[in-house]
């Protein structure tokens, strides 16, 4: 078995008096695609935002390769190798595609040309449009840009918050192909999805979240076959 790269232990997140995440634990193995699925308000996004450092946890610990990074600020977390693709893409609309990608590598001081070419190879569309303002791209292209921008920081773990949100089914399939492709090239992926079907088909390991707790876990294919998961997230057939 591959070794654990990111380990979450008993993580709790509060917003004011509301407990969004009530003590969850899970591991992400190096080179895997791990997915958290669940309904709206289950606490998936909160978990991700906490790992990225945007929200401070109320308890528990986040360990990256043996190093405790709980409560670090986002700058240090990106430096240590965890980058998030935020929900709803959130590209910089007035910056060009190239500038958007350069922003992803903002904290790096080394040469980024190789990585830029790598991202352009993954997304030839972005190369064609490198001089266009980010806001003029279509939804799917913006999602590609958001993923490409995150890759520019050369992350060990890339976290994606609902990459399929608001995209046409055919585009969603393309996005998941890219996720698989990136993973093949050695990037560990932590994926959050409401599109449980696609997510579980792609992921090595899946976790089901309900109202701030993890209620089920296992290999993606096993969860996909599970009756209660089918009933709750995939629709009965």
């Amino acid at each position, binding site marked *: 078995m591959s070794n654990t790269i990111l380990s979450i232990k008993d993580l709790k997140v509060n917003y004011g008096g509301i407990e969004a995440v009530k003590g969850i634990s899970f591991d992400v193995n190096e080179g895997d695609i791990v997915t958290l699925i669940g309904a709206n308000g289950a606490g998936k996004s909160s978990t991700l935002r906490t790992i*990225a450092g*945007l929200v401070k946890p109320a308890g528990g610990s986040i360990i990256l390769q043996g190093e405790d990074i709980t409560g670090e*600020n*986002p*700058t240090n*977390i*990106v*430096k240590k190798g965890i*980058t*998030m693709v*935020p929900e709803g893409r*959130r*590209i*910089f*609309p*007035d*910056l060009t595609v190239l*500038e958007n990608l*350069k*922003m*992803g590598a*903002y*904290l790096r001081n080394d040469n980024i040309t190789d990585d830029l070419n790598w991202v352009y190879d993954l997304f030839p569309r972005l190369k064609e449009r490198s*001089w*266009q303002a980010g806001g003029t791209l279509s939804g799917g292209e913006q999602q590609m840009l958001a993923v490409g*921008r995150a890759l520019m*920081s050369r992350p060990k773990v890339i976290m994606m918050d609902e990459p399929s949100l608001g995209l046409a089914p055919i585009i969603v399939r393309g996005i998941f192909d890219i996720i698989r492709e990136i993973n093949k090239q050695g990037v560990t992926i932590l994926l959050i999805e409401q599109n449980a079907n696609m997510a579980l088909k792609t992921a090595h390991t899946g976790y089901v979240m309900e109202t701030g707790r993890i209620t089920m876990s296992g290999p993606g294919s096993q969860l996909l076959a599970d009756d209660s998961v089918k009933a709750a997230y995939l629709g009965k057939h």
Partner: protein
Amino acid sequence: MEKTLKPRSEKKTENFIAIICLVAFYVLLFLLDNYLPRNSFTTMLIPVLQKSSIFALVCVSMNLLNGFTGLFSLGQAGFMLIGAYVYAMLSIPDEYREAVYQYSGGTNIHFSIPEMLQGVIGQSAGSFFGAIICIIIAGIIAGIFAALIGIPVLRLKSDYLAIATLGFAEIIRAVFQWDKLGKITNGSYQLRKYTAFTDMNINIGGNVIKFTSIFPVFIAMLCILFIILLINSSYGRAFKAIRDDEIAAEAMGINLFKHKQMSFIISSFFAGAGGALLAMYQTTIQAMAFKTAMTYEILLIVVIGGIGSISGSCIASFLFIACNEWWLRFLDSGSLFGIVPVPFFRDGFRKVVFSVVIMVIVLFFSKGIMGDKEISFKGIGGFLKDPFGAKRRKAKKAVAAAAAAEGGEGNE
């Protein structure tokens, strides 16, 4: 629309033309300062050039905050006041100090940087370089104040930030007017007798070369050039990223507070330098003049020029100052061309016309003169070939009609 990198040779010719234009501009200014006869045209042109270059600098510094970092700050007048006062306090010659501070019962400051330099490098060069040093110190002090104010204020967003900075600007003004500080700031009385633009001349072997209008234009241009370089650097990209989307910028690892603070301090540094230049222009300063109305005037110029456009701010500053102080003066004169008497052309009518012009601009050119674009040779060429975009609109219509004729098949 495919845009590619310009070939090197084309860029070189563009830079070459730009340098020639710049040199020609400075030669004209030099002639204006030293050789051109004083008539009704040149006596108006010089102060308008001086004041508009100062306002261009202050507007660009405000644009760095509002247009490029997305921080809606209204503290510009406060930082200009700090710059103006620091400049004046440091450069009043010691022999005039008692006279200037007579209502405050004398002063505790007994040195003057231009005077100290005059002892070393001569009378005229001393006041010239002394003034430059004082401008830099004025900017630095304004920057230090900005750093302190920024710590609480920059945690706020949008309207709240605007209100807080506006409040701090007023507090600064009140503090400088406080009579307990009279021995330093002269309280609410004016400061005068310091080095002004008219002192900007260098005596080389008996020949006096005047820099009356070159001095402010050159200093302002240098500062604006620095801001342009900053905006095009990776820091500038981070500022624009924060403006576009704070959460995404934070997720990319940009330290929001540090970058906002940096932008705020740099903007205030140049506002302070602009304030120092304004003090030189006015020859006397008083804290009363740096009210919020001045900030609004600056904001108005930024909006007219286009939020997020450096060249827009510069053009709008010149137009605004020239209209306000010069071109629309005839409206107050009581007659048209000095011959035909027009009854409603009397004092204050200029302001009415000016307000209407501004309303028209805001209503019909809501993005300002330049929008968020910058002046380029390509843009100028395009404008000459197709002013006001009539041909472009026609071409667009033709394309749309062709697409409609295809029955929407060609849609992406």
